[in-house]
């Protein structure tokens, strides 16, 4: 095999999920009437913003060789915190700040802070006390959702302050600002993972924790930061969720966790850690969203989505194994 074909093949393997996304979009555009229009594509991006942001945090922790099941509940708690403070009906307190725009940074900070605190809690137990990430974050997944129920009393908050709602309504080049926030998150965190020592260290910790420790990398510190980031990013996802639904309900975002897992795995992140990139995860998120949109357009019952997502995850894992064999042959 000459170097050029080898290079081309590696390029395809590295970005396989993007090729899949393009392939799926082309097939849907050809087969489903009305699929091929800018509005639909904008909708795919828009619908994936909350899931996308949440997947970033999850991907960071998985790449570092751990796991965070709590992101969904954390997002719900952040959304509920924002909802209770800044919604004017339901259980909302309708807090007003002057000037109005001040509510944006305050609500954002609150959401991120709530997520960050739970991230610190998870990170401390997992890293310092060496407990299993799966168990600790499973516990958080349950008790944080419980906390949402407790603080809301099972009721909901509606009518988010217009100053915050503005992010979901105002459009820039056809996309609401919330979608741009998600895209910006992907760009920023992709750069952090690919270009900074911190990102490089997370990948290496996921690959061989002992080696990084021996090399003098502060493994514990990096891992705790990863968990805090996952929590804070989940908080941001909750903020976007509150804007999207103009409030918060007690069961807000239920099921997002498994979609996020699906997106991360489809995006090429290995659950064993150390493998995967954030652009791939974004492609995975868009792929899920594109398929959802197709199901809606074809008028299939929404119940099909779960079946298809499940099969897609299965396909992604099989594809990953297949990619490994090809790579070994290349080397």
């Amino acid at each position, binding site marked *: 095999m000459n170097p050029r074909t080898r290079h081309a093949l590696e390029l395809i393997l590295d970005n396989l999920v993007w090729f899949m996304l393009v392939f799926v979009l082309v097939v849907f555009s050809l087969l489903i009437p009305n699929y091929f229009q800018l509005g639909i594509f904008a909708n795919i991006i828009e619908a994936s913003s909350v899931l996308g942001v949440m997947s970033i945090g999850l991907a960071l922790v998985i790449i570092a060789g751990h796991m965070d099941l709590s992101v969904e509940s954390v997002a719900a708690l952040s959304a509920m915190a924002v909802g209770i403070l800044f919604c004017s009906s339901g259980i909302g307190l309708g807090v007003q700040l002057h000037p109005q725009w001040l509510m944006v940074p305050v609500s954002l900070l609150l959401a991120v802070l709530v997520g960050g605190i739970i991230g610190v809690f998870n990170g401390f137990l997992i890293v310092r006390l060496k407990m299993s990430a799966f168990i600790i974050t499973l516990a958080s997944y349950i008790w944080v959702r419980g906390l949402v129920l407790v603080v809301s009393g099972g009721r909901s908050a509606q009518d988010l302050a217009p100053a915050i709602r503005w992010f979901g309504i105002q459009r820039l080049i056809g996309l609401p600002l919330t979608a741009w926030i998600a895209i910006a998150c992907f760009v920023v965190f992709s750069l952090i993972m690919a270009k900074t020592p911190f990102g490089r*260290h997370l990948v290496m910790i996921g690959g061989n924790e002992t080696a990084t420790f021996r090399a003098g990398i502060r493994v514990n510190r990096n891992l705790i930061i990863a968990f805090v980031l996952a929590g804070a990013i989940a908080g941001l996802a909750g903020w976007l969720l509150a804007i999207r639904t103009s409030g918060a309900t007690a069961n807000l975002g239920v099921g997002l966790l498994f979609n996020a897992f699906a997106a991360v795995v489809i995006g090429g992140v290995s659950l064993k850690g150390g493998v995967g990139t954030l652009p791939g995860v974004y492609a995975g998120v868009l792929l899920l969203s594109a398929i959802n949109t197709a199901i809606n357009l074809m008028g299939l019952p929404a119940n099909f989505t779960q079946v298809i997502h499940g099969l897609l995850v299965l396909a992604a894992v099989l594809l990953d194994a297949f990619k490994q064999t090809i790579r070994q042959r290349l080397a």
Partner: protein
Amino acid sequence: MSEPLLVLDNVTKNYGAIQALKGISFSIGRGEVVALLGDNGAGKSTLVKIIAGGLEPTSGRMLFEGKEFLARSPAEAKAAGIETVYQDLSLCTNVDVVANFFMGREITRKVLGVPVLDERAMEDVVAKALANAGTRIPSLRTNVEHLSGGQRQAIELNRFVHWGGKLVLLDEPFAALGVEQTRRGLDMIRQVANQGIGVVIITHIMQQAFQVADRIVVIRQGVVAGDVARNKTSPDAVINMITGETLAGAGPAS
């Protein structure tokens, strides 16, 4: 040799009720190659980990460059100038050769105040280091998982030669190497020692120890069973020290 580089003074290590090291005392000079020999379970790897900051001793003290020394983490040992090559390789196979070579000490440049990896500068350094050592690896950008065992060990060895420091600890460094690569590895050790760096090499192979070491230290059941200059002993004598048929050196009998 005036002042020794590292002095171990009655270092012990207990794992619960088990005494892995019962009081180890010896010293390493600058530019000296010390071969650490001993049967399986004699405590060689434990000793290396204590010097390298992976384990803390139960009692005893160490002097590094004349000063009291105790590394609580590998990072501290590294900061003091102690490099370690472990027998189970310390490579991240999921990243490329360059990333492994610079693990934990990446070259960065500031972009808007944020440290950003300077990949080109790092690749140049690695290319030069590997070329100097005569190691051929097709692409420095291939992930280490696709490289052979010999190539991986070569990366580790080149890494310690490049970073040098003041003291190098090698725990069975040639386990996966072929004849020619081992010879080159031994040359590397000599070359490193000639720069005034102290070298401790753990090995099972008597021939390697006699090829490269200035001094041979034998550990048996957690104590120093022999500490002799290479040119004043013979492989047979050393084997006797390892198995305990004779007690030729310092250290209390257990």
